[in-house]
């Protein structure tokens, strides 16, 4: 169990990670300058930061559009995944029929459908991106939730049988709490997937003020420092999303031992 830590202790705990990060950035800067690497291949960190400051307003506006689609898709996809998993928890035959199909679908590159959803909804319609994110997040969430609901220690079920309780009580008292760590694992995976889905879907066409289109256009116009600045923002969003899910996990299932 983590105890309250002083700022100095926290710093000491993350010192290795911080050191690695700083070292990589410095090495990047030094190598780019020393070898005189052209800007269109790899700009130095200092150049990227300068570009980020110069274009901050536009990048943030584009990022907000993309983030909104990712979040909405995440909520719908994960919500639907949990709902379907709960519905199938009751009927073993439905579940056993559905699960292999879901696992198969989950292993196909759903992003390949992006041109199709662009065609369905129109590439400037946010729904075309939300649809991709929904598809990408639905299957991992559903599969993980089903696993969490069904992979219950048999002795726990035997204990509940000794109490002579209904399936509904077993669901609420055993299966759902048992599934929570699995659900959060899905959320963690989906937090990254949803942003990847939203951005890559924009590469196939989208409004000018979106992260994917912005990166694509800046790269095509040889403004690689701007493209890199937008990529940095995309990375920050991805990490932030993941950390929010992690914080929610610690808050909601503090008993889960793997939480650290």
């Amino acid at each position, binding site marked *: *169990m983590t105890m309250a830590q002083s700022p100095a202790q926290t710093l000491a705990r993350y010192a290795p990670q911080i050191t690695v990060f700083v070292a990589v950035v410095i090495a990047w800067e030094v190598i780019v300058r020393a070898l005189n690497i052209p800007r269109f291949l790899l700009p130095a960190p200092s150049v990227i930061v300068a570009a980020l400051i110069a274009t901050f307003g536009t990048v943030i506006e584009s990022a907000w559009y993309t983030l909104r689609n990712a979040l909405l898709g995440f909520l719908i996809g994960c919500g639907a995944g949990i709902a379907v998993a709960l519905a199938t928890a009751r009927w073993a035959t439905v579940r056993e029929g559905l699960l292999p199909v879901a696992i198969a679908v989950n292993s196909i590159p759903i992003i390949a459908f992006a041109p199709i959803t662009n065609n369905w909804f129109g590439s400037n319609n946010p729904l075309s991106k939300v649809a991709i994110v929904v598809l990408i997040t639905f299957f991992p969430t559903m599969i993980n939730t089903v696993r969490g609901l069904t992979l219950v220690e048999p002795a726990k079920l035997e204990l509940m049988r000794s*109490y002579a309780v209904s399936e509904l009580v077993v669901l609420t008292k055993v299966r759902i709490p048992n599934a929570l760590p699995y659900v959060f694992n899905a959320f963690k995976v989906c937090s990254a997937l949803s942003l990847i889905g939203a951005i890559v879907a924009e590469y196939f066409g989208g409004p000018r003020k979106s992260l994917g289109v912005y990166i694509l256009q800046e790269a095509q116009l040889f403004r690689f420092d701007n493209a890199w600045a937008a990529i940095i923002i995309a990375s920050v969003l991805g990490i932030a999303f993941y950390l929010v899910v992690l914080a929610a996990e610690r808050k909601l299932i503090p008993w889960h031992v793997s939480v650290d």
Partner: protein
Amino acid sequence: MTPVVTLTNVNKVFGGGGRPQTVALKDINLQIEPREFISLIGPSGCGKSTLLRTIADLVPPSSGEVVVNGKSAHQARLNREYGMVFQAPVLFEWRTVLHNVELPLEIMGVPKKEREQRAREMLKLVELQGFERHYPWQLSGGMQQRVAIARALAFRPQLLLMDEPFGALDELTRERMNAELLRIWHETKTTVVFVTHSIPEAVFLSTRVVVMSARPGRITAIIPIDLPYPRDVETRESPRFFELVTEVREALRRGEERMA
């Protein structure tokens, strides 16, 4: 007084319908009186756990009759007339120690205040005051098993069924738990049916030791234990204790030889 458990000509056959059959229990007849402490002892595969589970109505007998507290074992389970302790503690990781003990009370609809008070009493009984807010993973194996005992006793059942509850503990912890269990048995005035494969444990705890042998699982001897109370460390070192241990061991060996 009506017996707590009456087993009449109980047989249990696993398999069949194309698969090889195993006779787990053959012609079991046993009567257990109120406030007895009965140990079922025998080699692996002798059906002692199956026998316990037929009393608990977790495994239906193939033929014969199981009567618990004057009614069918099934009705007794529906009435929640027994508490069960398994080899593993089977605690719910997402519940604190206190809430684990409250679980059966919660299922039975006991009001919140009363069940908390009862759970605290039970934790006091198993000497775990001060650990109410801990999660199971923060406790040692022996402490976890004490929580399981507190949970099984929380709704004050007349009958306590225990399936090798101390099998996973080291020898000294096991002996301490044995002494605790005897004290709890005295204080709560319950009837206990206890499955074990430790001869000293069976002799130390029981009023009668039921010796079983394997393939087919059947009762080969019932040995009354006349050790005086209170039983403590000195009991384990008394000549009478060794005589009884030898008697049980020889009964076990005779059962094996008859089979060979």
